[in-house]
């Protein structure tokens, strides 16, 4: 591919480490920056650079296969390995692109929502959170996952709490998130501990190899799986472990909600895929049972219950947050099928949902920025007062429902096809039902905006007051992406198929002998 030749060699070799180390180090530095503009520009630059490097890595993976990187030159399985393959490269690109796009939006939004002296630390925390997510996805070391999980979580708690200057309820919701998140992360650590006990290694590939020797009968391995699924379930807002999510999304600063909704649960979902399918063996009876009963079952429960809850929320962001829980349910349903089609559909929805939910939350942030709107009932007349913002919201909203020509349709169709192929006819019924519920909760907001009169102040209609361009451009980038990938879905679908291919190959049996040669480390870099 020609595009690939544009990337310098070092990006392709050291990219896996650079996309994590760069934001981590810069994040620490800009916490000290006196100027918020400088912090913003640096953040923007770093996320953009990470996005470019992720793109380079993705292209490299597509054309030349997986990339392995040994941290500090310590050979796996003793050293920490980073690896990029068809499963995590698209997620890396997704996270960094969303971060880049959202950062543009942050400029006006953060000024409006965060106190001046906290703005530089805000960007610093954001970069740490970003680095944590990237690290979770790129690393091939199980304990390293825990560390990055905590890096992103802790900075997320702080960022959610920064919404307190807008609404004090951000504080208890951040605290609630902290308690639930820490329990989840600790469960995950326990699971990894048990796995380490049995396998004596932390490298995922090595773990998979040893686990194959141990076999499915080992009780400790079973327990480890249970702890890992519950721990990740908390992080990815699997129904009914989602209770932290609606309040955290509702009261975090607008910009961060958009980023969080689009990426945080997605990284956890990736980990669920990675552990279930490539570390453990999905053909083991307890895992196939768990996939079918727990993952798919809770997914379906979430699709229905959370959609239903979304209908009765009065706060716009809570509506969308409950909708996120429901959409995670779609993804879990696809994963639970454990067929190539099901995994493709689930993975596709990970990408697609990030795009549309990001756009929706950006639009909601713009409503607050101009008019201080947080309630669905306050949205009346927005179609007239903020036509462009509202149009972007509507496009993304239609995508959430699953109208043809949008990404939502593509993934729901793929999911329905997968369900049919798997013989789960009732699942199609559930998808339909959940989509009908989505029509209700999205329709409710669109109806307010377009069919209710513009409110009056002192007997005068409120004037048109469009969001600034720095908000509109990111919003419309995502909204248009949701249409473009809805009309021509070949690219995301091929990425999802590539990911399903990796998952379908089962546990990674690459042992250290077959690991690709470790790239030369420059004498200055590394550790």
């Amino acid at each position, binding site marked *: 591919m020609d595009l690939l030749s544009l990337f310098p060699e070092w990006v392709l070799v050291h990219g896996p480490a650079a996309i994590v180390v760069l934001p981590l180090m810069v994040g620490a530095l800009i916490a000290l920056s006196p100027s918020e503009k400088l912090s913003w520009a640096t953040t923007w630059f770093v996320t953009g650079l990470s996005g470019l490097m992720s793109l380079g890595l993705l292209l490299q993976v597509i054309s030349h296969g997986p990339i392995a990187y040994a941290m500090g030159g310590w050979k796996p399985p003793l050293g920490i390995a980073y690896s990029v393959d068809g499963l995590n490269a698209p997620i890396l690109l997704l996270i960094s692109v969303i971060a880049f796009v959202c950062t543009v939006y942050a400029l006006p939004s953060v000024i409006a929502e965060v106190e001046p002296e906290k703005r530089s630390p805000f960007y610093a925390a954001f970069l740490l959170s970003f680095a944590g997510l990237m690290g979770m996805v790129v690393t091939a070391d199980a304990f390293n996952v825990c560390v990055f999980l905590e890096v992103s979580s802790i900075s997320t708690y702080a960022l959610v709490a920064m919404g307190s200057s807008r609404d004090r309820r951000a504080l208890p919701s951040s605290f609630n998130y902290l308690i639930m998140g820490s329990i989840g992360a600790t469960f995950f650590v326990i699971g990894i501990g048990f796995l380490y006990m049995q396998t004596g290694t932390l490298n995922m590939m090595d773990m998979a190899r040893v686990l194959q020797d141990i076999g499915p009968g080992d009780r400790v391995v079973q327990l480890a799986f249970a702890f890992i699924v519950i721990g990740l379930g908390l992080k990815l807002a699997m129904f009914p472990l989602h209770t932290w999510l609606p309040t955290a999304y509702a009261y975090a600063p607008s910009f961060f909600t958009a980023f969080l909704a689009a990426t945080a649960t997605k990284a956890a979902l990736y980990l669920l895929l990675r552990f279930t399918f490539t570390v453990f063996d999905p053909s083991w009876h307890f895992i196939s049972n768990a996939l079918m009963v727990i993952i798919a079952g809770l997914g379906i429960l979430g699709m229905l219950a959370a959609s239903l809850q979304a209908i009765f929320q009065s706060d716009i962001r809570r509506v969308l947050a409950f909708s996120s829980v429901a959409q995670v349910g779609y993804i879990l349903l696809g994963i639970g099928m454990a067929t190539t089609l099901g995994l493709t559909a689930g993975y596709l929805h990970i990408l697609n949902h990030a795009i549309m939910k990001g756009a929706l939350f950006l639009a909601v942030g713009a409503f607050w920025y101009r008019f201080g709107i947080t309630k669905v009932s306050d949205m009346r007349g927005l179609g007239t007062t903020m036509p462009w913002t509202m149009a972007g919201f509507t496009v993304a909203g239609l995508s959430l429902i699953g*109208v*043809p020509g949008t990404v939502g349709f593509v993934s*729901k169709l793929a999911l329905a096809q997968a369900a049919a192929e798997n013989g789960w006819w009732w699942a199609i019924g559930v998808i339909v039902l959940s989509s009908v519920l989505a029509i209700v909760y999205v329709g409710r907001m669109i109806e307010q905006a377009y069919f209710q009169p513009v409110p009056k102040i002192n007997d005068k209609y409120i004037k048109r007051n469009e969001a600034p361009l720095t908000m509109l451009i990111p919003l419309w980038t995502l909204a248009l992406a949701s249409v473009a990938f809805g*009309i021509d*879905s070949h690219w995301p679908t091929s990425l999802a198929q590539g990911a399903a291919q990796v998952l379908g190959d089962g546990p990674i049996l690459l042992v250290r002998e077959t690991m690709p040669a470790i790239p030369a480390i420059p004498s200055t870099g590394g550790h």
Partner: protein
Amino acid sequence: MTAQLALILILLIPAAAAVLIPVVGNKPNVREAVSILAGVLLLGVVVWLVHHVGLSPDNRPELFLIEFAGGFELKLKLEPLGAVFAAIASSLWLVNTVFTIGYMRGNKEKNQTRFYICVAIAISAVMGIASSANLITLFVFYEILTLSTFPLVTHKGDAKAKKGGRIYLMILMATSLGLLLPAIIVTHVLAGTTDFQVGGIFPAGFSTFAASILLFLFAFGIGKAALMPIHPWLPNAMVAPTPVSALLHAVAVVKAGVFTMLKVTVYIFGPDLMGETPASTVLVWVAALTIVLASIIALRKDNLKARLAYSTISQLAYITLGAMLATSFAIVGGGLQIIMHAWGKITLFMCAGAIYTVVHRTEISSLNGLGRSMPWVFGAFLVGALSIIGVPPMGGSWPKFFLMMGALDAGQQAILWVLILSSLLNVAYLIPVAARGFLLKPDNPRSDAQIAAQLKKHRFVRFAPVFTAAGAFVLFFFIGPLVDYLKPILPAHMTGGL
């Protein structure tokens, strides 16, 4: 002219008009000329296509547009049913444009440019529906039609118009997204395709249970067919200016609905599967109930347009009935009803519009004696009404005959009585309108005479209804060619009896 070119032209001509109209928007005469010119061109191309499709069963022009997500394709393909629908819509668009110009100018409506743009887009969407090759293409144009007609329904812009428009949009969008789209997806998953094929696309031995559920989803998902209880959008849409009601709610929108219904039953399920599916029997009775109930409601409406709206709901259910009976006679009867009802009902609506333009009256009870001063308009109304009732020698008598035959073929004698009852109810709610005009004395002879004198100013508005009334009459004599034309939509083993 190659058929493929013609196929894309029927979509592009109205679309081009929609682009041109705003350019010349400030010159009303040029603007209207563009509309009429587009109408003439479109009619020409459609007539050529209709002729082309009728020549041989192999002449089915096809055009691939783009491949959509997940194996769905946007594809056009014209077959006889679609050709007939396109022909009605394009011919009546032209007639209606002439009428619209008289009406809009006579009533000094605002935002006329927007009005003509939306109508042109709607016609383009109708052409897309008529020529779509699979369900997903049909769905896309179906939604465009809903959205493009919304500004027309709310044209007046007052609170009542907005409320009506809201109900219109909500019901149509909710049913199409909530029921029709899932039905299409499930069909795609089950049959592997959504392409329309003679005889249906489901494999032999397909589960009748699944087919039943799908059929229910389709029947109520196609909200534009106004099957009860999905009908409230139609009376609410009557807040639109009369030409919109005439064209869209007698021809384009509702006919797009029942056309979709026929397409689904004939080309997706296929008559054979329809006969085996228990749901079709249930839906036959839903349609029968709609026919009778809507007629009874129509009887109680004093507002002329409201009465016509409920009459439309009742008459549309005839087509659904034909589709659900799914015998050869019933299906052809349904197809004929699309044609005949369109000509009859547009006549009635244009008469209502003419009356409103001239005397500004909307209530039936206020029409006493008006027929004496407006004989042409009321004459046209009478002819249209007779056609709707189904009195020979009006075109509308044929579909009723075919449907009765179809009901007998299907072993549903009771439906025969429903149809007879419905005709009686039609008489009861349509004839009094004309009778009041011709037979009763005017309430206030002097003012009526003055108003009638105004008729000269609005000479324009009476041509169109008289023309369509004549059409409704003439069509009676073309039944042979029409039935022959529609025959190829049926699988080969069913065409014997016709």
